């Protein structure tokens, strides 16, 4: 045991003392946030008013186009010809103009409006102009065609709220399941990344020891199993530390950033600049506006999720790390060999990811239940179900069973991998096949 700790300590220290560790652990989040801040900063800076002259000869807008938030300013001009508008465009009095010919008929959909601009108009601005114009046109069409005002229509179309409640009397309903969805997806995905990053780190460490031929020296002092466990523990604690630092950094920056850029938060919501953020804000809007978020979040059992996250993080890591170590031990000089040998290990991880995607939508489907109990997939799939809470997403029995299975599975894979490792680490010069590896694993003694 003492020797395992000694080995773990070395594995930990050599990795933590590396410059790349500091760079990835502290530099990466800073870099991402920095870039983010820069992008937002510049979009805020560049946002300037866009002036549009409207020559409404057919009076289709009825002077109703108003500048709402000051970004796009419509000003109605009367009795101007196309030429004078062109001139005004060139003299930069306006950024664009709309000339509505008197023949324009809004009842007929084939007539189109032309917006002429001096410079090409950005996509986001285009969208805003379109939305505003269409809104006014829609109202006017309703009035003209059906003699119905927009407000009237809205109240007719208004749907009664439908709340999805569970039998336990939890009425937080759809907002919660939306948030659960996101929380489940993120935590499942994080575990997936952890398994890959630190699993391959273990594998590379073992390969390094084998190709450096230091394994033989060390194995004459400690048992191969101790060497393997020491390495797994050491890299595991590197992972844990790295994640803790990331969490602290992300939380710290989340608090700091709005302080540095006060209007940043507002900008981030009103200017979805990234597709991912568009989706996120849409999801938030769907779930009933942002101010409901905190209420919904409070419905998610955060201590439970955090506790389970750490458990499945460690359980999943230990389960897979020993398998990765076993593969590393069978690889010879050529790192290319590792790719084909590692495939049977990465398959269940990817498979788990696929199940997780489904489980996050339907936490109680048979596939999700199976995936969350089977130890090779449970670390990823269970996180998706846990996010929906106990007992809505997963029953207590299933959770306990899954944890027991994971511990049993971890002991089994470690035993199995230990036997492969013991033989593989000292085997040189021969390319190993899976058939031989299985023979090592099931050999007695």
């Amino acid at each position, binding site marked *: 045991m003492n*020797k395992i700790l*000694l*080995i773990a300590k*070395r594995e930990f220290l*050599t990795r933590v003392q590396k410059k790349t560790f500091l760079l990835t652990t502290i530099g990466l989040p800073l870099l991402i946030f920095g870039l983010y801040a820069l992008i937002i900063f510049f979009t805020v800076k560049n946002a300037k008013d866009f002036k549009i002259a409207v020559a409404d000869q057919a009076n289709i807008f009825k002077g109703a186009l108003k500048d709402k938030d000051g970004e796009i300013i419509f000003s109605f001009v009367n009795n101007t010809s196309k030429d004078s508008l062109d001139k005004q465009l060139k003299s930069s009095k306006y950024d664009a103009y709309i000339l509505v010919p008197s023949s324009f008929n809004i009842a007929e959909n084939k007539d189109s409006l032309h917006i002429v601009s001096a410079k090409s108009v950005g996509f986001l601005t285009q969208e805003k102009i379109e939305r505003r114009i269409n809104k006014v046109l829609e109202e006017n069409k309703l009035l003209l065609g059906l003699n119905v005002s927009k407000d009237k229509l809205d109240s007719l179309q208004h749907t009664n709220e439908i709340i999805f409640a569970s039998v336990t009397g939890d009425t937080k309903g759809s907002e919660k399941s939306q948030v659960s969805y996101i929380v489940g997806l993120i935590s499942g995905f994080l575990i997936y990344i952890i398994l890959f990053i630190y699993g391959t780190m273990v594998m590379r460490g073992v390969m390094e*020891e084998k190709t*450096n*031929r*230091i*394994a*033989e*020296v*060390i*194995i*004459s*002092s*400690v*048992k191969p199993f101790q060497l393997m466990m020491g390495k797994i523990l050491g890299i595991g604690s590197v992972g844990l530390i790295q994640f803790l630092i990331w969490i602290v950094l992300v939380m710290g920056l989340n608090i700091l950033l709005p302080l540095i850029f006060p209007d940043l938060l507002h900008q981030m919501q009103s200017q979805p600049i990234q597709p991912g953020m568009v989706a996120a804000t849409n999801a938030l809007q769907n779930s009933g506006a942002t101010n409901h978020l905190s209420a919904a979040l409070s419905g998610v059992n955060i201590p439970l999720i955090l506790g389970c996250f750490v458990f499945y993080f460690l359980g999943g890591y230990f389960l897979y790390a020993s398998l990765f170590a076993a593969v590393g031990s069978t690889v010879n000089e050529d790192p290319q060999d590792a790719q084909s040998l590692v495939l049977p290990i990465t398959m269940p991880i990817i498979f788990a990811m696929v199940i997780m995607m489904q489980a996050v939508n339907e936490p109680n489907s048979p596939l999700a239940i199976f995936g969350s109990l089977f130890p090779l997939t449970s670390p990823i799939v269970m996180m998706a179900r846990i996010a929906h809470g106990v007992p809505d997403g997963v029953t207590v029995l299933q959770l306990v069973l899954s944890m027991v299975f994971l511990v049993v599975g971890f002991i089994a894979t470690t035993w199995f991998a230990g036997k492969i490792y013991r033989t593989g680490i*000292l085997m*040189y010069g021969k390319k190993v096949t899976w058939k031989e590896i299985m*023979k090592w694993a099931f050999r007695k*003694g």
Partner: protein
Amino acid sequence: MNNILELQNLQKYFATQKAVDDISFTIPQGNIFGLLGPNGAGKTTLIRMITGIFYPDSGNIIFDGKKFDALNDCVKIGYMPEERGLYKKMKIGEQVLYLAQLKGLSKADALQKIKFWFERLEMESWWNKKVEDLSKGMSQKLQFVTTVLHEPKLIILDEPFSGLDPVNANLIKDEIYGLAQRGCTIIFSTHRMEQVEEICDQIVLVNLGKKILDGTVQEVKQQFKENKFKIKLTEIPANATNNSFTIVDSKANEFVVKINEGFKSNDLLQHFLQQGCTIESFNEMLPSLNEIFIDLVEGTKSTTRAFQKVN
């Protein structure tokens, strides 16, 4: 003198071959012991069993009077494998300390011993360097230090001189002698027969997983002597032939002769003395270990590592 190591009918099989097939020998304490054999004869497997890396399929290892217990006895054994291995990126001082601690030394104890050896082999300035900065010979020296640092009772060196220049080789050789004098037993595995002849007290020759020769260097030479003598006379004898010997090689007044069955070296001398020749020198020609080695191993498809046949 008691035996530090006793191997009794040791066997180790791998799937396709017998790597070690019924080998027994004993090594007295303080001995410098040569473990010889062609490539693939099973030496490494044998060493790995002695170091506790492999378990024998059958047979016993008696280490220091007791049955060998890999976990507890590993601290008494130092092993330098043929393929040297150190962490390339790790600082040398930390590395040696780490390896010593793995052997079970306390940190303070290890530091003190490292200091002693680093001073002794003039390596003090290496502490903060990395192994990748060292030359091959330097890392060889370092590996040697890590092997002997914990003062093991049994030291196993696999080709310890490869890559060393004569100065450093002598340095290590002196250390080996010194260790043996202080009671360490050294198993020395090599193909370099002249080194074996120079250093070893006792040898074992392994081939095809079997022991084919065992004894002190002198015993082995006696065993394989061909009764060849070299005689040098002051003048060319009138009659050089006699039924007591056959001339193998002659060069004016120098002869290499083989004494025939049933005769003794005195018969040879008498023959020349009777002719009134003055004998300038006369000595027995013992075969070198190199010759014995080649003699025994050549022609015996000397590999235990069987490869699958190509169909």
